[in-house]
């Protein structure tokens, strides 16, 4: 069938499309093979080939191969032209959402800021000055207000410029396209991305006004140095809000847009200056500024703040980058740790919080001076930390976390905390980690045992024997025996006396009477966040009786806070560096100006503890801390085992302050430091506490503690300790009975049997050392006698 039809189509001699030449060739072929088709002498080899389905198929494919590209290009073109008019925009990519958190002291002076490298600062559309709009349009897209998203003239111009320059010279992307790139399609350099960018630019122009597109562009564009958006750029380079930008500053910012890193004014001021002038010239060429404005702005060269001309000539002054530069690195570090514990990483570094703190620069300076004086003549790693807070509000006024923040950023004023997976909301005490591990408080822990005893109804006049050593009943092994410092022994002592002279053997008995777990619970309730209220150490073992001698680790911050509860008569205001925190929208996240205090200790118990702890300073182990306010100062010394940590924690009704001293790198003994052979809490730490508190309270009227309201109830008969667990906590602590001069002639004491050994403090002037007689038996050892003689 095909054959015949083909024959009809092709065999007509003289047909219009068969040449005579071809016919001759065909006949020649016919002669050779003697083959004729249908009797007609018209052999046609190509007809034979054409009859082959393979040949026909290949021919059809060839035709299709030519047509398909045309069809595809045509269809895509139609789609490209038609779709921008009707299509919807895809969802925008999230913008950089990283605002700077700013921290202020109590006077409203900014002391620190926390930020990520990349930041943005929201700006209102009305705040963007016309001069910046003009500068950006002139620099980036001079036909912005006339094109429809894609600038064909701009493309041609850029193409020609690239040809003339022999490479990439000028970009053709409009501001709209650049915004589309930032907000929708990304920076991928592919043909598909370019096509989509052009399409979306067209759609965007249909949906948004030119001003809105420009506003969005300026809010997202990258200006270098981590600044996304013109708000962050104005802040980082000029430290000013965007609405206050000058013409020259606006031109510099606009000049950064093409290559922010290359033209960084801090690292390449010459490049930034070149771009600034280029933009100014363009603005003048495009009649966006007058020649006068140009003449005025052009000489204002890009100048780094440290290179400011002294002659006062105008310049475009670029400020140094914001860093964590602060006069108060320890306090700022505390604020940062507190905020992280409370609100988490995202809020602190990117949330744009406004943080008003309780830092008192005057007290902070005095604290740093006291610590500096205490450490003068010594060297690292010997260190000291000091925390001072207002017990009535819990607000930390001053904090020193070590000798030198530049040398070590471990904040020794803070402790360590169990890992927190979530921020800790609420206004109760929270553990604020500082990079250290906390330190044993030694006898500075005893007031918590005393408070628990008083809560249980014991009297401060309850007596215990105070031998030089005491062995826990039913205890075998290491750590079963408690020694007094210097191995000094006493007869019977009241709790008041045992506290004033820090008698370990009395407190070893007392904690067994009141219960280790109850003491741990109270200490935690009062603010020692590192002490487990369940009575268990981090390793799961229960605290032993040595808890009362300071075996559990604490931080100076927690100690100041917990002692503050005594000063505040049993009411707790959790320690905080924060007065108020607001987020970037102005919403108040935390306001500690009117917190509800929480009662954690009976008022009269606190009053009794205050009364007892007054004696520590009046005539006990802490006389070096005497600041001349006999009825309004209380405190406690603490010396950890082997003199590895020395503390003085004390307070007045206005300030609670903890001082710690020790080696930051180890638990080496504090010996032979500044002429002190063995550093007890009553020596250098008490002196530093004294120096700080005397200066801090200078000019502040003394306030006395409220005396206990009623006589202590008769002491209950303590239950005999039935079982004494073997202490699992580290060994006991030591505190000297006194570290003050002894009287020349011991004064016999009345009352108890066997007689006690302490002279009532009322007989001792506050400016004079207290008079304490040695215990009647055993007598001082020769070494003790020598030491006390030296102390005199």
């Amino acid at each position, binding site marked *: 069938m095909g054959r015949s039809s083909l024959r009809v189509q092709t065999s007509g001699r003289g047909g219009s499309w068969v040449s005579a030449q071809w016919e001759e060739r065909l006949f020649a*072929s016919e002669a*050779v*093979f003697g*083959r004729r088709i249908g009797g007609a002498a018209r052999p046609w*080899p190509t007809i*034979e*080939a054409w009859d*082959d389905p*393979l*040949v026909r*198929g*290949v021919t059809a*494919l*060839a035709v*299709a*191969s030519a047509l*398909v*590209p045309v*069809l*595809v290009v045509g*269809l*895509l073109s139609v*789609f*490209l032209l038609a*779709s921008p008019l009707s*299509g919807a925009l*895809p969802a925008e990519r999230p913008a950089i959402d990283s605002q700077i958190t700013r921290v202020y002291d109590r006077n409203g002076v900014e002391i620190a800021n926390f930020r990520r490298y990349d930041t943005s600062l929201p700006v209102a559309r009305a705040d963007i000055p016309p001069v910046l709009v003009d500068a950006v349009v002139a620099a980036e897209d001079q036909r912005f207000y006339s094109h429809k998203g894609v600038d064909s003239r701009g493309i041609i111009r850029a193409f020609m410029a690239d040809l003339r320059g022999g490479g990439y010279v000028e970009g053709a992307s409009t501001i709209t396209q650049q915004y589309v790139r930032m907000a929708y399609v990304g920076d991928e350099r592919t*043909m*598909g991305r370019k*096509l*989509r960018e052009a*399409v979306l630019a067209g759609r965007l122009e249909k949906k948004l006004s030119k001003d809105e597109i420009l506003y969005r562009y300026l809010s997202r564009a990258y200006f270098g140095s981590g600044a996304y958006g013109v708000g962050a750029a104005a802040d980082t380079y000029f430290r000013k809000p965007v609405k206050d930008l000058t013409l020259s500053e606006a031109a510099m910012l606009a000049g950064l847009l093409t290559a922010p890193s290359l033209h960084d004014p801090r690292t390449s001021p010459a490049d930034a200056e070149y771009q600034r002038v280029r933009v100014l010239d363009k603005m003048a060429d495009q009649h966006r500024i007058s020649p006068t404005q140009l003449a005025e702005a052009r000489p204002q060269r890009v100048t780094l703040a440290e290179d400011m001309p002294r002659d006062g000539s105008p310049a475009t002054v670029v400020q140094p980058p914001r860093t964590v530069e602060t006069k108060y690195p320890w306090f700022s570090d505390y604020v940062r740790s507190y905020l992280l514990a409370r609100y988490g990483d995202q809020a602190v570094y990117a949330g744009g919080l406004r943080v008003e703190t309780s830092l008192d620069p005057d007290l902070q300076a005095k604290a740093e001076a006291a610590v500096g004086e205490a450490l003068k003549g010594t060297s690292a790693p010997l260190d000291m930390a000091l925390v001072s807070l207002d017990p009535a509000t819990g607000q930390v006024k001053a904090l020193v976390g070590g000798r030198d923040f530049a040398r070590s950023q471990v904040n020794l004023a803070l402790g360590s905390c169990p890992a927190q997976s979530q921020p800790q909301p609420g206004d109760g005490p929270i553990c604020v980690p500082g990079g250290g591990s906390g330190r044993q408080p030694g006898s500075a822990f005893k007031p918590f045992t005393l408070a628990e005893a008083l809560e249980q109804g014991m009297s401060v006049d309850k007596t215990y024997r105070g031998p030089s050593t005491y062995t826990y009943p039913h205890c075998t092994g290491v750590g079963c025996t408690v020694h007094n410092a210097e191995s000094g022994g006493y007869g019977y002592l009241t709790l008041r006396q045992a506290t004033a002279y820090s008698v370990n053997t009395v407190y070893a008995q007392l904690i067994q009477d009141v219960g280790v777990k109850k003491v741990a619970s109270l200490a935690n309730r009062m603010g020692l966040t590192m002490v487990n209220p369940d009575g268990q150490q981090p390793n799961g073992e229960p605290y032993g009786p040595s808890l009362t001698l300071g075996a559990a680790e604490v931080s100076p911050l927690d100690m100041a806070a917990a002692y503050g509860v005594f000063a505040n008569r049993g009411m707790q205001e959790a320690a905080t560096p924060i007065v108020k925190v607001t987020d970037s929208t102005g919403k108040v996240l935390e306001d500690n100006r009117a917190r509800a205090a929480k009662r954690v200790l009976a008022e009269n118990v606190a009053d009794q503890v205050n009364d007892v702890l007054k004696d520590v300073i009046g005539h006990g182990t802490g006389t070096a801390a005497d600041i001349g306010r006999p009825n309004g100062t209380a405190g406690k010394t603490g010396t950890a085992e082997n003199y590895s940590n020395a503390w003085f924690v004390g307070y007045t009704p206005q300030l609670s302050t903890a001082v710690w001293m020790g080696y930051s790198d180890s638990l080496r003994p504090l010996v032979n430091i500044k002429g002190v052979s063995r550093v007890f809490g009553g020596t250098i730490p008490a002196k530093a506490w004294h120096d700080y508190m005397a200066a801090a309270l200078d000019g502040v009227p003394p306030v006395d503690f409220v005396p206990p309201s009623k006589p202590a109830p008769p002491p209950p008969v303590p239950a005999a300790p039935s079982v004494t667990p073997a202490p699992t906590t580290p060994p006991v602590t030591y505190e000297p009975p006194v570290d003050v001069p002894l009287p020349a002639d011991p004064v016999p004491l009345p009352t108890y049997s066997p007689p006690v050994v302490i002279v009532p403090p009322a007989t001792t002037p506050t400016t004079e050392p207290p008079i304490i007689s040695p215990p009647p038996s055993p007598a001082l050892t020769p070494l003790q006698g020598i030491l006390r003689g030296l102390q005199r």
Partner: protein
Amino acid sequence: MLVLLIVVPAVIVAVGVVAVLDWLGVLPRLDTGTASAPGSFLERLPRAGLYAAAGVMAAWIVAWVVLFVVGISTLSG
């Protein structure tokens, strides 16, 4: 790019296969003797050569179709 990625390998493979098979002498000719003059173009042309050409052209068309699909999805995305 898509066109090149699809078509160039197809051309290389097709030409290579036909050349090798032809050298081995195993390929049937398009016209095996009765219609073509000895030594004529058609006689020299292996049938496999046409198959290879068809394959290349099919790859070319597929490439354009793929380009069309990708282009449409890009533009409409």
